[in-house]
């Protein structure tokens, strides 16, 4: 549905070129939710603005629905944009219009008669669950409600593609979840292709099918969400995953942590699970087979893109020979084991 081919964008600032995007290639299949994750300044905003040419790429092709839109005349581009909707971090609702009038705006742009606007807007209000707010001004809505209005407005022209520019970044976690659920819902109900950019791995984890990681204007990694979470290859990707799976060693453990093995001290392990390893009960198997005990200090297990993965801090209690063997056993079962020290 969306294909970016060799997209580059260079800004000139104080006569110095700034390479915002470097040779980006991206393919978003129809009906998918595709996430692009990156830190601020990585170029993700520029990237999503290139898809509807709010920002014209310096070079490269933007193909939406089998049409290279960079070659379109201004008039044709305006027509095409009506099928590529966009929602924004700061909602961008008109304060001078009520909820109803905001949703009606794109329909007014295409010159739809009033008689046809009303039922369409009512239908959209129902879809986003704001029927009772139709006559309210945006100033009196919460952030989540504003984004719902923005989504309804974006869907008014029955678009094929929805672009989400940090759509949940200004919302609290609970509202974020409900907005993401709504997006997933319309993706499934309407078969809408969604391209979203974000700096939050949680967003990717919750709704994306595929994800690309952007860093300093380049796509460094691109894969299914399950693959990215279970086998992140690039350092930037790993950092993002760390940010969602993060276990600190508790302070009291840190204080008594000794870097070298001593009598009476047991190893403190950080175990990383990914993919297949989660499905076998390795820890209890190791306990039975090697006569050790596992004292789990903290753990975080997660599920994304059909794959379980997680991280765990555990103290392995047993004699040194047995713990050595148990660690080897875990490693052969695809668990990454890191000995943090001895406590």
């Amino acid at each position, binding site marked *: 549905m969306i294909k970016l081919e060799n997209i580059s964008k260079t800004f000139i600032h104080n006569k110095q070129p700034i390479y915002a995007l470097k040779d980006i290639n991206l393919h978003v299949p129809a009906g998918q939710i595709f996430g692009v994750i990156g830190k601020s300044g990585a170029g993700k905003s520029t990237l999503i603005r290139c898809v*509807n040419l*709010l920002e014209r790429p310096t070079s490269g092709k933007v193909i939406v629905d089998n049409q290279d839109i960079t070659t379109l005349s201004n008039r044709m581009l*305006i*027509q*095409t*944009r*009506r099928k*590529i*909707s*966009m929602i*924004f971090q*700061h909602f*961008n609702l*008109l*304060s*001078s*219009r009520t909820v109803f009038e905001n949703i009606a*705006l*794109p329909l*007014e*742009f*295409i010159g739809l008669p009033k008689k046809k606007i009303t039922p369409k807007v009512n239908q959209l209000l129902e879809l986003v669950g704001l029927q009772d707010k139709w006559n309210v*001004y*945006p*100033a009196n809505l919460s952030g989540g409600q504003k984004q719902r209005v923005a989504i309804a*407005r974006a869907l008014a*022209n029955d678009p094929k593609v929805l*672009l989400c520019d940090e759509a949940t970044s200004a919302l609290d976690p609970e509202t974020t979840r409900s907005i993401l659920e709504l997006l997933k819902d319309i993706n499934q109900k309407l078969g809408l292709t969604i391209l979203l950019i974000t700096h939050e791995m949680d967003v990717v984890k919750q709704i994306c099918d595929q994800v690309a990681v952007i860093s300093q204007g380049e796509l460094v990694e691109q894969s299914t969400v399950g693959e990215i979470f279970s086998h992140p290859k690039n350092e930037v990707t790993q950092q993002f995953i760390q940010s969602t799976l993060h276990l600190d060693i508790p302070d009291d453990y840190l204080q008594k942590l000794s870097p070298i093995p001593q009598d009476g001290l047991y190893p403190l392990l950080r175990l990383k699970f990914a993919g297949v390893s989660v499905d076998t009960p390795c820890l209890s198997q190791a306990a039975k087979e090697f006569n050790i005990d596992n004292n789990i200090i903290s753990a975080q297990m997660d599920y994304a893109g059909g794959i379980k993965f997680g991280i765990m801090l555990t103290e392995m209690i047993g004699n040194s020979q047995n713990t050595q063997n148990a660690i080897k056993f875990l490693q052969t079962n695809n668990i990454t084991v890191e000995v943090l020290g001895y406590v």
Partner: protein
Amino acid sequence: MFDFIPSFKPFETLIRHLSGYDFWSNFVNLCAQFDGFNEKMIFKIAQETDNTIYMTVLSGLWGTIIGLPLGILLYTTRKNQILECQIASGLLSFFTNLLRSIPFIILLFWIIPFTTFIMLIMTGQGVFLGRQAAIVPLSIGVAPLIARMIENALLDIQTGLIEAARSMGATPLQIIRKVLLPEAMPVIINSLTITLITLNGYVAMVGAIGSGGLGELARYYGLYSYKPAIMNTVLIILILIVFTIQFIGNMIVKRVTHH
């Protein structure tokens, strides 16, 4: 064309109506205790009040008709705006600044040939004084001020709104009509209120050179023969006019603001 409400004489009509009542002679007698006041003077003040309001409102209207599109163009032709055009932007900005740098009293005299020319075309009489002729310099004097104020009001709009409208496939004209103007309306009304009050000052200047209005009264009864009662009455009326403009302006702003 400049005089599409030639019968605009609300206060004169009101006074004429009041003069039919019994209490009128008492009122005239009361006023006559002050130096310079008589029935004729009361009518004169009413007429000049009408003229002042007439000139303020009509030149405000014409100033807006010229200034509004100018202000929109000043904004939209800026860099990174929907009708970006450096040449147009530079020229418009230059001429706006040029007109803005001429003090009104000098502009008033400078464009006398133009005023008489316009009056000749519009009314068949090549004059540059009178309440109709005054509208020409007043409109031209106030238009660049209005243009800059409109431009400023539009600059206040979040660029995200324009971006959203563009992403919806809005044409530049649709963006102006349905996004820019409605969103900027409270600030625009506020600016126009300020402009109208400034304009009231300009109207006094054209009055003082003989175009009618309260400024003309001030010249006769302030400059030529000093009559404090008349001067003070003129002053009170002017203050009332300004307060009324501000009051109406505030009321409209309240109606169009939804924050």
